């Protein structure tokens, strides 16, 4: 600009070529200047070309810049020049420059956006920048310096900045910045923000050795996504303060991070990133006095991944997180009367209180308690979980007892290994069930009102890859006999179509009590049986090989009521054959039987029925005997359909249970 003063006023055309002009804020290279001033005119035309313009230390560079303006004398012996500025193939901008002995002023604008610059001769190291409705894209070069992968997509900002460019001191930019509707995204789309607004005081200092940025203010609305973390900012302002330092080309250090979202979340801490922009270390203290808004504002991304996007969180918590060398080193979570509730009722924990501490290194102890809970409709009572953690695993330091349905479950030697890298979580434990009221369990599971006490020991259970395997087995006393469960496997316990596998052995059940509960009519005697390869998917049987047979005992009467005969016939698609005329059956309330045996092998929705193996062959080759009668009148029940559609069979069983089947006497 000093060059202009040299241009002689009398000349019609003056030209100059300068290889390089260096100022404190910017350097211009390959510069050409041409001034045309018609004789006796009030104004001349100034044209300036620059092959390259760059700002030292800020990576700002423009190519092929051209400015053509109308040059006039101004008050106080100054000059003023207004005209269009074009850089490369960009849209033209309007640049007005005015200077006199005291001040230099420049206003650059396009559309509504303007950047006004002002510098006084008295303070040559201080430049004020007044930016109004400037598209954030204009600040792309600044963003690229701090975060090379990111680009601005939308938004505008206002700023009143002071740029200090003292010799031998850092370049410093300070002042308030207001963001409106800002959108940004990284090249790989892993981090993105939209509609972000806010007002911040910024302080940016640059020396060749290091850069320091401090941002302090409020975020006002918008949303952003970083990996799986989705943050939907509330309408209320969120206080944000970040101090960041970058030494040379090293990664950024954030010695101070503050996030203040009212009662929902307050976080303070520090972080450091590697050269590759990966998190290297983190120390964060988080406090939430009211967890209710957390899910919607901060956790929806993560919960959604685990199919738990609708989980309600209530209560208050404190959390301390420590990351060292890119690995989680410690987590201390302290819960204050927290409720976790799955709206699908898969799980509920109420009144969680206490702490859970995880350590990748030295031993730490913690204790978590809850008041009550529910797992798939099964209520359990208050319990205390004594945790210990060291070297990256979490375990119980002593057995934990959870009261359940009148009895209790003891967890022994529980060890939790959290997910690491590609390996998912791995949980190992032993279980002891004591005296659980099977009647209440039946009721909770929607089964008939079986009465019994369930107990057993599972020495080793292991959860990994969404599957729980149980060694050992459970057994219970039921209807004066015993039922034993072995080979228990639970797949996808909280995921898609939970599946349970088991082998069940039934020994010596009192048939009278069983049939009374089932509303099946009356059968006296004892029943043995097995259900092998039982598989429930979504708690519905899809496969099993079941076989039940009566067990004759000395002194135990074996009688079957007429209603039970009708029901067996109906369910088994069977007919009865008797020594009596059909109509005479109605005269008897019950019949003596020798044996009853029935089997069903369920595969692909079809039950392959079978009966007593030693039954005498009847007239149809494919038939099988279910009830073999004894005495007079002698009555046999024989099935003819070996292949029965399972849903139909279930419908019939349900009808029998609800008493909808009326005895029909032929």
């Amino acid at each position, binding site marked *: 600009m000093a060059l202009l003063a040299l241009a002689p006023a009398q000349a019609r055309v003056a030209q100059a070529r300068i290889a390089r002009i260096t100022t404190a804020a910017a350097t211009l290279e390959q510069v050409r200047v041409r001034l045309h001033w018609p004789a006796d005119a009030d104004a001349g035309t100034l044209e300036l070309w620059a092959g390259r313009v760059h700002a030292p230390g800020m990576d700002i560079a423009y190519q092929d810049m051209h400015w053509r303006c109308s040059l006039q004398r101004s008050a106080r012996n100054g000059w003023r020049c207004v005209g269009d500025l074009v850089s490369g193939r960009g849209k033209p901008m309007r640049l007005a420059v005015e200077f006199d002995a005291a001040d230099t002023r420049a206003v650059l604008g396009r559309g509504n956006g303007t950047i006004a610059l002002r510098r006084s001769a008295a303070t040559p190291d201080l430049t004020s920048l007044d930016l109004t409705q400037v598209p954030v894209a204009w600040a792309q070069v600044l963003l690229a310096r701090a975060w090379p992968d990111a680009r601005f997509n939308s938004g505008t900002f206002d700023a009143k900045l002071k740029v200090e460019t003292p010799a031998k001191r850092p370049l410093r930019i300070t002042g308030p910045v207001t963001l409106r509707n800002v*959108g940004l995204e990284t090249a790989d789309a892993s981090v*993105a*923000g939209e509609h972000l607004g806010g007002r911040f005081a910024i302080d940016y200092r640059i020396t060749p050795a290091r850069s320091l940025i401090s941002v302090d203010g409020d975020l006002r609305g918008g949303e952003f996504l970083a990996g799986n973390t989705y943050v939907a900012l509330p309408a209320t302002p969120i206080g944000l303060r970040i101090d960041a330092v970058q030494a040379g080309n090293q990664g950024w250090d954030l010695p101070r991070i503050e996030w203040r979202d009212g009662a929902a979340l307050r976080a303070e801490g520090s972080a450091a990133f590697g050269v590759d922009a990966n998190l290297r270390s983190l120390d964060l203290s988080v406090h939430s006095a009211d967890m209710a808004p957390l899910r919607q504002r901060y956790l929806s991304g993560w919960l959604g991944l685990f*199919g738990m996007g609708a989980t309600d969180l209530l209560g208050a918590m404190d959390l301390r997180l420590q990351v060292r060398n890119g690995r989680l080193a410690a987590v201390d979570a302290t819960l204050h009367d927290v409720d976790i509730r799955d709206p699908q009722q898969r799980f509920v924990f109420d009144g969680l209180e206490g702490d859970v501490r995880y350590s990748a290194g030295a031993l730490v102890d913690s204790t978590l308690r809850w008041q009550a809970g529910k797992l798939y409709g099964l209520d359990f009572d208050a319990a205390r979980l004594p945790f210990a953690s060291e070297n990256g695993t979490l375990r119980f330091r002593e057995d934990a007892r959870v009261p359940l349905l009148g009895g209790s479950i003891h967890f022994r030697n529980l060890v939790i290994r959290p997910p690491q890298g590609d390996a998912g979580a791995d949980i190992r434990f032993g279980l002891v069930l004591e005296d659980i009221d099977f009647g209440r369990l039946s009721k909770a599971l929607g089964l008939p009102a079986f009465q019994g006490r369930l107990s057993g020991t599972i020495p080793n259970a292991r959860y990994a890859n969404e599957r729980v395997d149980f060694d050992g087995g459970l057994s219970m006393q039921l209807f004066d006999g015993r039922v034993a469960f072995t080979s228990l496997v639970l797949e996808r316990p909280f995921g898609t179509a939970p*599946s349970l596998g088991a082998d069940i052995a039934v020994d010596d059940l009192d048939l009278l009590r069983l049939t009374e509960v089932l509303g099946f009519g009356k059968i006296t005697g004892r029943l043995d049986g097995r259900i092998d390869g039982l598989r429930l*998917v979504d708690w519905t049987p*899809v*496969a099993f090989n079941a076989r039940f047979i009566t067990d004759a005992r000395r002194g135990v009467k074996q009688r079957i009521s007429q209603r039970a005969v009708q029901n067996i016939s109906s369910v088994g698609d069977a007919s009865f054959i008797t020594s009596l005329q059909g109509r005479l059956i109605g005269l008897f309330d019950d019949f003596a039987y020798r044996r009853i045996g029935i089997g069903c092998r369920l595969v692909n*929705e*079809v039950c392959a029925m079978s009966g007593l193996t030693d039954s005498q062959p009847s007239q149809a080759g494919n038939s099988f005997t279910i009830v073999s009668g004894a005495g007079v009148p002698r009555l046999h029940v024989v099935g003819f359909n070996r292949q029965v559609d399972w849903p139909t069979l279930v419908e019939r069983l349900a009808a029998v249970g609800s008493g909808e089947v009326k005895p029909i006497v032929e």
Partner: protein
Amino acid sequence: MGTLLQKRWMGMPVVGALLLSACVTINVYFPAAEAKEAAREFVEKVIDESDKVNMKDANPKDATRKQGGGGMASLDRRFDFDPWILLGIGSAHAQGAPDITIKTPAIQAIQARMESRFNGTLRGGFDSGALGFTSDGLISVRDAGKLELKDRVGMNGAVADDNRDRKAVYREVAVANGHPEWESQIREVFAKQWISSARSGWWYQSGSGWKQK
């Protein structure tokens, strides 16, 4: 299976058959052709919009339920007439030859859910190029930049849900057919089928990169 084997043997040059027999022995018990057919039926129903109405009307179970039929009556309608029965080998067919069924209630419930998720959410992601079929039978967000930010969270969740369903389907198909050890083979067959049924313009994983169909 008998017909299939015969066709295979008759149509195959002897030398080629000898060369291939080495490979075939690995999967000798796995009914690849039946699995492929089952996978095709499953995948097409999830992906194909136009056939949706027909498929629902053709559901044999609904039809029998409405008529109130039961026992053998409903069974008869579930199976097509098998000409091999005339030769007296119908029972052998049923017992010895593996058939791949995908008609268990659990699988069908998952399929229905996948179908509605595909039409509601995922199809748009495939059309825009944001999603792709992976080579292991799952789906993945291959280019999140193709999605509006507001849709990205929902899409991530839908992809996670769908992958859970997919894993469950592969497992359940194997287990429902009495061979849990087939799970990985079933998964491979489905992985190929998803790609093969993909519409033109959709992306799929090939080797280490993505290809557009």
